[in-house]
């Protein structure tokens, strides 16, 4: 990365203004409806958090550089240039108070994809040197150590050994020509070791071959969250190289929302080429196994359950029915949260927000949306399929003294596998 300066920030921002962005800025009539769809606004009441306002520096730059009137105004000194201070100020809006959940993009009456532009304005703000410390740290660790939380292969090896000792299940590393290359998120390695064991049990029962690459086990991509495409590309390329080296058919994203987006949708575009393998979220893979009759479960959960849709799966990934199909195999008392599926409310911690220490206050405030949804539902168990959501849900529930266990869907299914 070259040195962060205002000039560089502005240059990068300009490079990210494309035809959709120009159409979006040309279409916005400042109606304010995006605010009603954004939990950072609804839970704080602060109009600065209105989604479209988070793009104001980029909008002015577009006007000044890519419209006739804007250029004339700039020429005769009538326009307000984008300043260093302004980008610094906007850093809080686009990193702390936006999880790129994309709800605003669903309601905008003129059809603007606001979260698409947030992803791009982050590129400019980080190039200008105003990315939050927490995300810079995570990104540096991801590049240097291989994981945003600083997890190394040692930790994973230890976990594999523990699983082998407790369950006798082998965690296969670096096997060639297998069905699935399984990726993990650091969060799973540290906080939810159940996930890896669940995968091992499910694939064993289904008779599928799989492996973990010791060179690229990390699925998350801090480059996407901080908005530095060069780093995002570097992180994705590690996975791509490992997948190609091991000649796998499918790369499986873990229970993580943005990791899925990073590899499935952004990956080929970052690399500038199509992939020779498929990319699927673990929930998609499990639903395929269910369809093929390879997922044999027994026992029914009788407690009242609901599912928290990770934004990146529903609004950015089209994975909506799959978790429901799976839940219905093992739960009789499944209830939908209000606005579930495509319009689900974010947990408040996505898009890198959870990595930013200074955002803790607003992150927990944003959680109030989920809190009121859950109070209304009165469920015994909350199921989800993203470990970042899961951490935020657990913390939010704890802070609000609500006693609802949060469970990952994959491990819940593994608990119901027919014993052989």
């Amino acid at each position, binding site marked *: 990365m070259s040195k962060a300066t205002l000039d560089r920030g502005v240059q990068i921002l300009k490079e990210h203004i494309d035809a959709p962005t120009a159409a979006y800025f040309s279409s*916005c009539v400042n109606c304010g409806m995006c605010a009603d769809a954004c939990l950072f606004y609804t839970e704080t009441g602060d109009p600065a958090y209105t989604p479209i306002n988070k793009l104001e520096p980029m909008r002015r730059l577009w006007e000044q550089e890519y419209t006739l009137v804007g250029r004339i105004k700039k020429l005769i000194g009538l326009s307000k240039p984008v300043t260093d201070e302004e980008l610094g100020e906007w850093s809080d809006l686009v990193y702390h108070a936006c999880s790129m959940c994309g709800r605003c993009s669903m309601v905008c009456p*003129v*059809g*603007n994809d606001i979260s*698409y532009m947030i992803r791009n304005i982050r590129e400019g703000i980080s190039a200008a040197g105003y990315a939050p410390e927490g995300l810079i740290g995570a990104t540096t660790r991801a590049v240097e150590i291989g994981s945003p939380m600083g997890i190394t292969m040692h930790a994973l090896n230890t976990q594999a050994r523990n699983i082998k000792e407790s369950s006798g299940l082998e965690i296969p590393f670096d096997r060639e020509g297998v069905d699935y290359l399984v990726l993990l998120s650091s969060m799973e390695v540290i906080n939810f070791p159940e996930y890896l064991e669940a995968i091992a049990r499910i694939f064993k029962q289904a008779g599928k071959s799989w492996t973990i690459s010791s060179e690229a086990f990390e699925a998350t991509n801090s480059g996407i969250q901080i908005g530095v495409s060069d780093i995002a590309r570097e992180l994705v390329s590690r996975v791509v190289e490992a997948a190609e080296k091991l000649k796998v058919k499918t790369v499986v994203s873990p229970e993580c929302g943005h990791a899925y987006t990073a590899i499935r949708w952004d990956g080929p575009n970052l690399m500038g080429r199509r992939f020779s393998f498929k990319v699927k979220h673990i929930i998609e893979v499990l639903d395929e196994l269910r369809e093929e009759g390879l997922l044999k479960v027994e026992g029914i959960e009788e407690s009242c359950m609901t599912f928290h849709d990770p934004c990146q799966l529903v609004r950015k990934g089209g994975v909506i029915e799959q978790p429901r199909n799976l839940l219905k195999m093992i739960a009789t008392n499944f209830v939908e949260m209000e606005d579930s599926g*495509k319009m689900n409310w974010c947990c408040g911690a996505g898009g890198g927000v959870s990595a930013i220490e200074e955002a803790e206050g607003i992150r927990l405030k944003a959680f109030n949306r989920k809190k009121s949804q859950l109070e209304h539902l009165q469920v015994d168990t909350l199921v989800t399929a993203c470990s970042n959501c899961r951490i935020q849900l657990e913390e939010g529930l704890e802070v609000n003294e609500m006693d609802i266990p949060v469970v990952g869907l994959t491990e819940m299914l593994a608990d119901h596998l027919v014993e052989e």
Partner: protein
Amino acid sequence: MNSAEFLLWVRGPGLNIAMVIFIIGMLIRLLEIFMLGRKQNLAELRGNGISAGLRTIFTRSTPADKNSMRRSMFTFVAGYGFHIGLFVVIFLLMPHIQLIQSLLGFGWPALPTPVVDLFTVIALISLMALLWRRLTHPVVRYLSTPQDYLVWAATFLPLLTGYMSYHHLWFPYSWLLGMHILSVEFLLILFPFTKLTHAFTLFISRWYTGMMAGEKGVAS
């Protein structure tokens, strides 16, 4: 300039100037957008982006879901009231259709003028409600720029002067009609250089958003 000369000017040279600025201005704006281009999507697609894009062009005219509508009820009611009213007035009033016919060579049936008059009132009231909201609602007031008020006025005036002409209110008819046409010309000249362009560009926005979401298998 007497009223006859005034009317003659706004109907002739005035209208021509406004139309030329409007058409060339809009062409420039559309070129400015499309010339920026966009990168090809190399990810394996889950759905057909083209049909999804076309679909979103229409579906975005309706609320995303019931709860979103409830949350933004005021904007929806006033927004629909204004846009439907404006559409009816522009395209279904007999004198307007006659003007279109003289320009394009074809026309269509008009609605009875008293009905159009009712829609004019709906549009005027909706616009006033939206202005009130712009001035009082914390979010909309925060977002609003001088341009928002300028385009509000530029939209309100043709409706108001049209209404006054039809009812022969306060001023001689020929002056009112002249003012009405002049206010439309003002609107046309402002159009390409302000967010009034949304009337055209929103279809492009919906198309891109619907297409990009559709390629991921999401109905946007």
